[in-house]
C-alpha cells in the first residue's frame, strides 16, 4: 500500500469519518464536536447549533457525534433533508425513534405521539436526540414549531436535545431579532471554518501524518503554500485529497520527499474533474416483461418472462427459434413457433435502425410489434388458463432480442435482367 512506502501504519488522509484522525487537526471542527457532545451528554441543553459552509465537515461532525454516544443511552433521529412540512418532519423523527412508520396526519397528533415518546424514553433511562442536517432548509414556520417543541420538557431536565447543523444562512435566521425566543434556547453555537492559514495547513498535514505513524517530514517547506492555494484556502477535504494523491504519486515515482511542484501538478489535475457518474435508481413497474428489473435480477433478452403478480398461470415455452425468415427491402418476416401456433412476425426495416438508438427504444418497438402480433393472432390468448400479459411479454422479449442482435441483413442484390 502507498502509505507503507512512506513508513506509515495507516492512511493519513482518508476522507472518511474516523474519530482518531480529527483530533488536533482542525480546531473549529474539533470544538464543534466537543461542545455539541457536551451539550447532549452533560449540559442538558435544548438546542445545539453547528454552522459552516459546504464541505467543511458538518455532516462528518454529526456522524462522529453519533458514533461517540453510548447507543444504549440515546434514541437518535437524524434528518438530512428537513425542507418538508412540520407534520412530515415529525413523522420522520417519530419513525426513526420508534423504528415504525408513522402515518399520523395531524400536527396535534404527531406532537402527542412525540410527547409520549420522550417520556417513555425517560422512563427507560434514555434521552432523545434529534439531529437535523442541512437545517438551513428548515422553513421559518418550522423553526418556530421546533421552538414550541422544546417546551415539551419536564421540570427537572430536558428530555431531548435538538442539534441543528446548517450553512451560514441558518445563522442569519437564528440571529434574527424575530427569533430571539428560539435563540435564547440555544446552548452551544459553533462555527466550523476553513483551516485559517498556510501555517495551520502545515500543522494539519503534519499532525495527521504523525497520527498515522510518520517518523519524519514527508512534504518539503514549499509544498504548504501550494496546498493552501489548491485547497481553496484551507478546505480540509481538498487538502486530504491532494495530500493522498501526492503520497500515491510519490510512491509510484519512488520519491523521498514531496515538493511543491508535485503538489501543484496534482492540484491542477483534479481541478476540473467532476464527481463520479452516479448509479441510476431503478424502480420496477410491473410492465408485463422482465426487462425493467434491477441488474441483479434481470432476465436476458429472449429469456422467458417472469410471471406477473397474482399467481397467473404458466404459458407454453416459447423457444424463439426462427423456423423461416424472409428479408425484403421493407423489413424482415420471421416465422416463429409458439406451442402449436406458428407466428409470422413482420419487423419493419426502419425498426432495426430505430432500435439501435437505445435499449428503451428497442423495448418499446418490440412491445408495439408484440401488441400487433397478438391482435393478428387472437388464438394466442384464447385458452382459459392463458395469461395474455405473459404471452405479450414473451413475444416482446424475443423481438427485443432480435432487434438488438440482428441488424437487418441487406436485401438480396437485384439480379440483372440480362
Amino acid at each position, binding site marked *: 500500500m502507498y502509505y507503507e512506502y512512506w513508513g506509515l501504519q495507516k492512511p493519513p488522509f*482518508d476522507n472518511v469519518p474516523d474519530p482518531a484522525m480529527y483530533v488536533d487537526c482542525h480546531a473549529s471542527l474539533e470544538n464543534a464536536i466537543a461542545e455539541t457532545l457536551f451539550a447532549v451528554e452533560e449540559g442538558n441543553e435544548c438546542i445545539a447549533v453547528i454552522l459552516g459552509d459546504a464541505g467543511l465537515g458538518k455532516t462528518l461532525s454529526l456522524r462522529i457525534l453519533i458514533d461517540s454516544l453510548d447507543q444504549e443511552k440515546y434514541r437518535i433521529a437524524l434528518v438530512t433533508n428537513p425542507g418538508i412540512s412540520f407534520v412530515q418532519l415529525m413523522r420522520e423523527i417519530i419513525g426513526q425513534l420508534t*423504528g415504525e412508520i408513522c402515518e399520523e396526519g395531524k400536527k396535534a397528533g404527531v406532537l402527542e405521539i412525540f410527547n409520549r415518546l420522550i417520556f417513555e424514553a425517560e422512563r427507560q433511562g434514555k434521552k432523545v436526540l434529534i439531529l437535523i442536517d442541512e437545517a438551513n432548509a428548515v422553513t421559518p414556520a418550522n423553526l418556530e414549531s421546533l421552538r414550541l417543541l422544546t417546551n415539551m420538557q419536564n421540570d427537572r431536565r430536558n428530555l431531548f436535545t435538538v442539534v441543528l447543523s446548517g450553512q451560514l444562512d441558518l445563522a442569519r435566521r437564528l440571529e434574527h431579532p424575530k427569533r430571539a425566543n428560539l435563540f435564547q434556547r440555544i446552548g452551544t453555537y459553533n462555527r466550523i471554518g476553513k483551516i485559517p492559514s498556510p501555517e495551520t495547513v502545515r500543522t494539519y498535514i503534519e499532525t495527521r501524518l504523525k497520527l498515522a505513524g510518520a517518523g519524519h517530514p514527508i512534504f518539503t517547506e514549499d509544498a504548504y503554500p501550494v496546498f493552501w492555494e489548491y485547497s481553496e484556502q484551507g478546505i480540509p477535504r481538498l487538502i486530504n485529497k491532494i495530500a493522498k494523491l501526492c503520497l500515491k504519486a510519490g510512491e509510484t515515482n519512488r520519491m523521498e520527499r514531496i515538493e511543491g511542484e508535485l503538489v501543484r501538478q496534482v492540484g491542477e489535475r483534479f481541478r476540473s*474533474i467532476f464527481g463520479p*457518474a452516479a*448509479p441510476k435508481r431503478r424502480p*420496477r413497474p410491473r410492465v408485463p416483461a422482465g426487462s425493467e428489473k434491477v441488474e441483479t435480477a434481470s432476465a436476458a433478452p429472449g429469456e422467458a418472462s417472469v410471471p406477473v*403478480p397474482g399467481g397467473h398461470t404458466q404459458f407454453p415455452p416459447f423457444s424463439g427459434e426462427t423456423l423461416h425468415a424472409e428479408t425484403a427491402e421493407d423489413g424482415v418476416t420471421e416465422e416463429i413457433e409458439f406451442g402449436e401456433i406458428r407466428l409470422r412476425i413482420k419487423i419493419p426495416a426502419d425498426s432495426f435502425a430505430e432500435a439501435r438508438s437505445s435499449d428503451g427504444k428497442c423495448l*418499446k418497438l418490440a412491445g408495439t410489434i408484440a401488441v400487433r402480433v397478438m391482435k393478428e393472432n387472437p388464438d394466442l390468448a384464447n385458452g382459459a388458463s392463458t395469461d395474455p400479459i405473459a404471452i405479450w411479454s414473451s413475444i416482446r422479449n424475443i423481438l427485443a432480442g432480435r432487434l438488438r442482435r440482428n441488424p437487418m441483413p441487406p436485401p438480396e442484390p437485384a439480379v440483372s435482367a440480362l
Partner: protein
Amino acid sequence: MADSERAREAKEWFLRGCRFESDGAEPGLPAEAYRRSIGVDSDFAGAYVNLGFIHIRLKEYGEALKCFARVAELEPHNPESFNNLGYAYECMERLGSARTSYEQALRVDPGNIEAVINLAHIAELQGNYHGAVGNYRRAIEMDPGCTSARFCLGVLYDRYDMFDEAEESYAGVLERDPGHLKAMLNLANIRMQLGDDDGAEDLLRRILETHAAKGSGKPSAEADPDPLLEDVQVNLARVQLLRSRAGPGGPGREDALRRLRSILNLNPRNVRAGNMLREFENYAG
C-alpha cells in the same frame, strides 16, 4: 360479474395501461387504464404498482405512497412491495420510513439483494459511510455477480476519495460487465487523477467505441449529445491538455480544442467544456 370475468377485465385494462406506457403515451392514459383495472378488481396489485410509479414520475408522492401501501397490504410476503413503498418514502425525503420499509422487505425475504442495496443507499444519504459500505459489501457477498452493488460501492468510495477501493470496485464491475460505460468513465477519472493519462485515455476511447458498437453512430462529439458522452469528450480533451502541457504542443492540443468546440456547438451550456476551452486559450496566450 363473475370473479373470473372481473379478473379478466381487470387484466385487460392493466395490459392496455402497459401498452400505453410502452407506446410512450401521456401518463394520463395509462394511469386511467390502471385506475379502471383497479375499479374492476380492487385487489389487482400490478395496477397499483404501475399507477404508483406514474404518480412518482409526476412527483405526486403522496398518491404513490397510497398505491404502494395498498400493494403491501395485498402482497405482504412480496419483498418488492416494501421496496416500492420505501422508494416512495425516499422520494418524499422520509429516509427513516424508507429504511423501515426496506428492513421489512428484508424480513420478508432475507435474501433480497435489492433491499440491502436500498438500505446502503439510505445510509449513504444519511452520511453513514461505514453503514453504506457494510450493506453494499453484504449485497456483493449475497451475490458476487451483482454488478449494481459493486458499482454503487465504487461510487461511494469514489465520493470519499478512496481511490484504491473505488478502482477495485469498478474493475470488478467491468470484469462482469465489460460494457458498463459509467464504470469505465469513473475509472478513467480516477486514472486521470492518479496521473495515468494513457490508462485514462484507453478507457475513454473504449467508452466511445462501446457506445458506437451499441449502435449510436460514429464515436464523436458530433454524433451524440448524450451527457455521459459529453463528459467523456471533456475528459479526453483534459487528458490531451495535460499531455500538451507536459511536452511540446503537438497535435493533442489542436484535437482537444476541436473536441471542446464541438461539445459547445452541441451544448453551449456545458460549463466544464467552456471553462476548459478558456483555460486552453489562456495557456496558449
